[in-house]
């Protein structure tokens, strides 16, 4: 008799790494629990407009991955869920999972009647708060699970009942409580990913104070068709088309005062975003302020191609300060040109800070026993026998490398539960 409970794998984090680890293990015949704190799977990649270097939409691969889950009954998905504690050893781990109330049950058909009657609005987390959505909402067009969410504030308000009454299918349960689930599993893959470094801490760069300073993750939403501007890249201050855009590399990364490591994807991300700007504004002037352009392996050709664009200026230098011109809300960048030593002043309409990746393990309490490196990464694949770290939990990497890492972690997890 196979003991299904302890033969199973717990994957924590439903972003690209965790999603991959879970599906790969399940397609090799293993039972998997996939725990994700958002109401949907896909993590940060679902918020990206396009991938470098192909400039293809992440939804395409997510659709395939979601179909793989649909066709595989070995994957048990828990969303709005976080691991409260985990302990044990190889072959026998106890994980306590806390599931926040969604206030919407499996009867939801996504018909949208709840949103129709709802007047309460919240900041849209999917768009990094750049717009508002109804407090009864589908997180995004391809949300998986494909099910609405009711914001706790709405659930507890008087309007909650109105919204509940509007649902023809009895899918809204305002009394839903947080619940705790105890899982016994044989192996754990920890893939809780990253958070964009808080750009407000870069106090000389004006994020938060000047509306036309945005971060690279916000830029993805500005370019995305389902973003706050329906895909038009516009200046937040006045909704005008930017004529000059600056990309400020290493905003926090490779900086002893912030993130001393290199976040490894930001050079490619900014160059990709330069192509977003170019696609919409053929005449826009684009500056990329950098220390080193890190376009590894074949990605180099993307860099080489972008250099052919005469209106993209690769400027070797660190942006020391960003100021705002009061009336126009244009930005004035003070840049030290490391090549000439001179201090340059460059005026732009909009600036994009290439903020780095802060590992979520540097912020979160769990797992308690795993040793973090100086930056908060769990920088070893096998943390302890039967417990593995993968993806940006281990090191800052791009999507393809995350899939590679997630696939490898799936095998390590299988090894630790295999009956010899």
């Amino acid at each position, binding site marked *: 008799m196979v003991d299904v409970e302890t033969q199973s794998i717990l994957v924590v984090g439903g972003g*690209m790494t965790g999603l991959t680890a879970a599906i*790969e293990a399940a397609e*090799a*015949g293993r039972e998997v629990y996939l725990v994700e704190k958002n109401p949907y799977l896909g993590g940060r990649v679902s918020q990206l407009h396009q*991938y470098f270097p*192909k*400039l*293809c*939409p992440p*939804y*395409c*691969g997510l659709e*395939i*991955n979601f*179909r793989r889950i649909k*066709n595989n009954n070995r994957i048990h998905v828990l969303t709005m869920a976080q691991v409260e504690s985990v302990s044990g050893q190889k072959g026998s781990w106890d994980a306590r999972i806390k599931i926040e109330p969604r206030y919407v049950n499996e*009867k939801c*058909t*996504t*018909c949208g009647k709840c949103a129709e009657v709802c007047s309460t609005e919240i900041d849209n987390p999917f768009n990094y708060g750049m717009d508002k959505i109804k407090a009864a909402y589908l997180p995004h*067009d*391809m949300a998986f699970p*494909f099910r609405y969410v009711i914001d706790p504030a709405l659930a507890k308000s008087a309007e909650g009942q109105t919204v509940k009454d509007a649902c*023809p*299918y009895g899918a809204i349960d305002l009394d839903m409580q947080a619940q705790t689930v105890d899982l016994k599993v044989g192996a754990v893959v920890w893939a809780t990913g990253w958070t964009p470094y808080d750009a407000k801490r870069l106090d000389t760069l004006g994020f938060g104070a000047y509306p036309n300073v945005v971060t690279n993750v916000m830029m993805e939403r500005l370019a*995305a*068709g389902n973003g706050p501007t329906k*895909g038009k890249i516009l200046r937040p201050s006045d909704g005008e088309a930017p004529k000059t855009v600056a990309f400020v590399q290493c905003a926090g990364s490779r900086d002893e005062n912030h993130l*001393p*490591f290199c*976040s*490894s994807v930001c050079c490619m991300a900014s160059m990709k975003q330069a192509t977003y700007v170019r696609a919409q504004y053929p005449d826009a002037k684009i500056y990329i302020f950098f220390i*080193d*352009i*890190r*376009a*590894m*392996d*074949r990605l*180099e050709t993307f860099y080489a191609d972008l250099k052919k664009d005469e209106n993209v200026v690769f400027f070797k230098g660190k942006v020391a300060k960003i100021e705002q011109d009061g009336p126009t809300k244009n930005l004035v960048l003070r840049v030290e040109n*490391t*090549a*000439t*030593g001179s201090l340059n002043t460059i005026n732009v309409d909009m600036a994009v800070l290439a903020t780095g990746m802060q590992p979520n393990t540097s912020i979160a309490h769990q797992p308690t026993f795993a040793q973090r*490196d100086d*930056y908060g990464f769990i*920088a070893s694949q096998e943390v302890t026998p039967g417990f593995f770290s993968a993806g940006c939990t281990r*090191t800052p990497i791009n999507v*393809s*490398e995350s*899939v*590679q*890492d997630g*696939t*490898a972690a799936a*095998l390590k997890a*299988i*090894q630790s539960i*295999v009956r*010899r």
Partner: protein
Amino acid sequence: MDKKTAVYICTGCGIGEALDVDQLSTLATSECGAAICKNHASLCSPEGVQLIKDDIAGEGVNTLIIGACSQRVMYDVFNFEGAILDRVNLREQIVWTHPAKDEDTQMMAEDYLRMSGARMKAMLPPEPFKPEQELSRDILVVGGGVTGMTAALEAAKAGYNAVLVEQAEELGGFQKNVTQNVVFPFKEVQANEIGKLAAAVKNHEKIKVLTGSKLEKLAGGPCLFNATIKQNGSTSEHPIGAVVLAAGWRPYDAEKLDPRFGYGASANVVTNVQFEERAKSGAVTRPSDGGALKTVAFIQCAGQRDPQHLPYCSSICCFTALKQAIQVKQQDPGANVFVFYQEMRTPGQGEDFFRKAQNEGVIFVRAQTPEVLAGGSKLAVEAFDELLGDKILLDDVDLVVLATGMVPATAFGADYKAKQSDEDKKNDMIASVDSIYVSDILNLEYRQGPELPELKYGFPDSHFICFPYESRRTGIYPAGPVRRPMGVSSAIEDGTGAAMKAIQCVELTSNGMAVHPRAGDTSYPEFFMQRCTQCKRCTEECPFGAINEDEKGNPLPQPTRCRRCGVCMGACPERIISFKNYSVGMIGDMIKSINVPDEYDEKPRILVFCCENDAYPTLDMAGLRRMNYNAWVRIIPLRCLGSMNLVWIADSLSKGIDGIILLGCRHGENYQCHFIKGSELANIRLGKVKETLDRLALESDRVRFEDISITDYQKVPAMLDEFAEKLVEIGANPYKGF
């Protein structure tokens, strides 16, 4: 199978208010041959599902047509053991995108029901492929370097037998010549642990290590591979389940470098690889006379990031230079060590190692085109230092180390295309032909060539960011520097990941299932050979090279190599290839079931063939956003547009359908088709039809191909409406009513 069909129509989510459901029910019985037709206000509710279950149990219903939401949702709810099922997308693609209580909307729903009826009449439950031969679950690993050894060891640790083929007499690959290395998380230079890995591999009971060996031939397909391996003059055969290709890399030939690097002009100019060989025997000295190293210059990007040489970055040379620079510093802290670099590339925690080198006193010079001056016995380096903004001259250099890059082992050998017979070449070659180098590594007995097709620069890498292990030969997974340039730590990850994919391939294939991207699919193509005309379209067009050929040109399908995309089915002019649940006849019947009003009704009909992975979800999302498009379209999702058979175009036009539009994925260099060439092939086939249409004086504008990506839901309604307007302009199909 004796079918008893039941049709269930959900009236929830606006369907009941928008459509005349009674009318649909009548049609279900009269035209779809349904024995039972029921409605429910919420078919996905437990009560609705129970209704269906009761009919399966009580009425012997085994064929279900469910008219409700898209097949992409509620898949877990509408999942009934032992019954075959079709979903009619009344919600997203009809009532959410078209006006309610409208004649055209109703006609659309009725047609979709008819089409589903036709589909289910032709559908048979798939039966998994079970060959008579015994299925192997062993993993063959080609290449005994870090990647290959890791793949073999990791597969073995998961309980699978591995066969490891290495051409050298010893395991270890390139790394066995490296005494010290730096690995993730890039803190210190350390002793290379390759020996430990090799010992673990040699001592593992599940790994058969064949050194000094060569894979002479690999025939068959997943779980049915037969590997012929030659070792010490004798050959042996091994049944194999799946393969990891870890053949590694070779250093770029320094003789080809630009003269400014000075290679060959002085014995004291060496490559980074030659530095390793020198470091093996202890302290590194001046090559010309064995003198101590006082000044050493490392020059990065030697023949890399250079369109004349290697256009890519080998991604490890910065780390290598830092390590070697530190090694020189450690053997003599007083030595002057300079690194001339264009861009310092030490991503992630690798930044620590860059800082370490700085702390050790290594001097970094950012310079784009440093020049090595090798006059007589003196060696110097001249460069424009970008940070100083001035030219510098480094005199009395004892050693120059050039960072030459990695060339994948798969990039060597003649291009297979050149070897193809003239007959093959003149056969109206359909899609862009893959480059395959006869690199003598796998020696596949495959009709399309003996090795993996390259993606770029000789790397047989995947083109999919989300699916980096996707190769174009099923069950063969490239890993390590053969896939893309990478260092030891990444290669270990990659070997492990590739082993995972190989194991998964064995598990799925042995259960008669397809691997990615249709993982779990148990259908497979069957060939009605009596009608085959040996035209070779199927064998040439299969994007995965799954079909071999006998000497007479008859296709020899290899079902375990098949990805179930149906490209062969679309290619076959004789229509002899079909799946149990997907066939030319089935789609043809669906087309024929469409009710085409005559010309005077002024209701044109447009057939939309769309990719089910991307275009179909796009149309669903247009529905989710309640966007509108004309109700003249009739949408048929295909596994891949490459499965589109031209007879469907003929069927449609002769039936009086006014226009046909193909919604497929982007093709060309940055193709997005998950079956590599499907959309490209569909487009080419359509081009041929256009020629024929013009000859028949039937306007070729009636057929169209549109690139569409999954996020194009803002664009798709306008695209469909514009096509409809164009058709009005052209006028009705003259075949209407014939």
